[in-house]
């Protein structure tokens, strides 16, 4: 898909490049709509129907309905757009970080503090 070029591998990290932007377009477009309070309310009323309205594929829809951030990223989600979805559920960046790293929120926070020492 990327013209046969070798991609840089950085463990635990996905570069949001053209391949990911193509793959995740519908998902990110749905998340972009969450800038509007009206759209956030509509999503909460019927999440599956809202995903369908934006044409999410099965992988994206499943990831959204189960609120699994790593799955959303694998389906082409971009961190800044997914944060808008996280906000609907009151998830902050430490909640999202903890979920992705399999830590408790306190453990994740402690690791951030430790990085400053």
């Amino acid at each position: 898909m990327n013209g046969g070029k070798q991609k840089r591998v950085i463990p635990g990290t996905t570069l949001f490049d053209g391949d990911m932007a193509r793959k995740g377009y519908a998902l990110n477009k749905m998340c972009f709509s969450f800038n509007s309070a009206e759209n956030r309310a509509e999503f909460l009323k019927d999440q599956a129907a809202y995903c369908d309205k934006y044409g999410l594929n099965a992988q994206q829809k499943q990831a959204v309905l189960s609120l699994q951030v790593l799955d959303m990223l694998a389906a082409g989600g971009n961190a800044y757009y997914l944060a808008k979805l996280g906000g609907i559920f009151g998830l902050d960046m430490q909640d999202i970080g903890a979920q992705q790293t399999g830590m408790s929120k306190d453990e994740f926070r402690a690791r951030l503090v430790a990085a400053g020492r």
Partner: protein
Amino acid sequence: MARIVGGINVTHVPYIGRAIANNLQQDPYWKPFFDGFPPIHDWLAKVEPDVAVVIYNDHGLNFFLDKMPTFAVGAAPEYSNADEGWGIPTLPPYRGELDLSWHMIDALVEEEFDITSCQEMLVDHAFTLPLELLWPNRKSCPVRTVPVCVNTVQFPLPKAARCFKFGQAIGRAIESWDSDARVVVIGTGGLSHQLDGQRAGFINKEFDLMFMDKLITDPLWVTRYSIPDLVELTGTQGVELLNWLTTRGALLGEVAKVHGNYHIPISNTASGLLAMEIL
């Protein structure tokens, strides 16, 4: 001609908006961050800029992935903030500086930077929060503004060397503007942080401190790194340091540090602050 009084680079974590709204400046979590600003407030009171050129990246408020300019320059009489979807307070509009906007657009295209000009432009937390931090407790921002947006979101991103040269072209544009205005250049974002993936929470203090130091003494140092190198060294969102580098470029020549601060963590981010004046 207009004069550049200096540059300020500062973190733009959305969470800061909530801290300001709730007056948490003296809260133990926030104090080490907010304590970095008073010396810069004093310096701003001394150099009295009339205009701020703000170099930042949009996070899906004005630009969606449908159209993603590498470099965009605002040319609006006023810039509004709006709901970004994650519950931080929306701030009142900021005044534009149309004469400088169009002078910059003309000068940048003349220098072969084919920017996107924006006669309507919403500005997100990456533009608004640094202004709130630099001029706090005011009903309206005292400077007129020109937003400059750099794509740090969707790859390919502009290379570090390209951003530095873009900054230099911005600096030359400001200095050739027929005005007696005093202009401060503000770069926002960073420093090291990664929000997404199994490596979420990644921070690189050693690199950040080196970057802040080299930005003063040897700004081309960071151009040895490719964009993927910078992601590896600073995190997927740490690449926002490109805005800092662009700002440094705009200062044209030698600079001295006015004041700096570095604190870990604010949210998931290593927060940095660096004010520079031109020698």
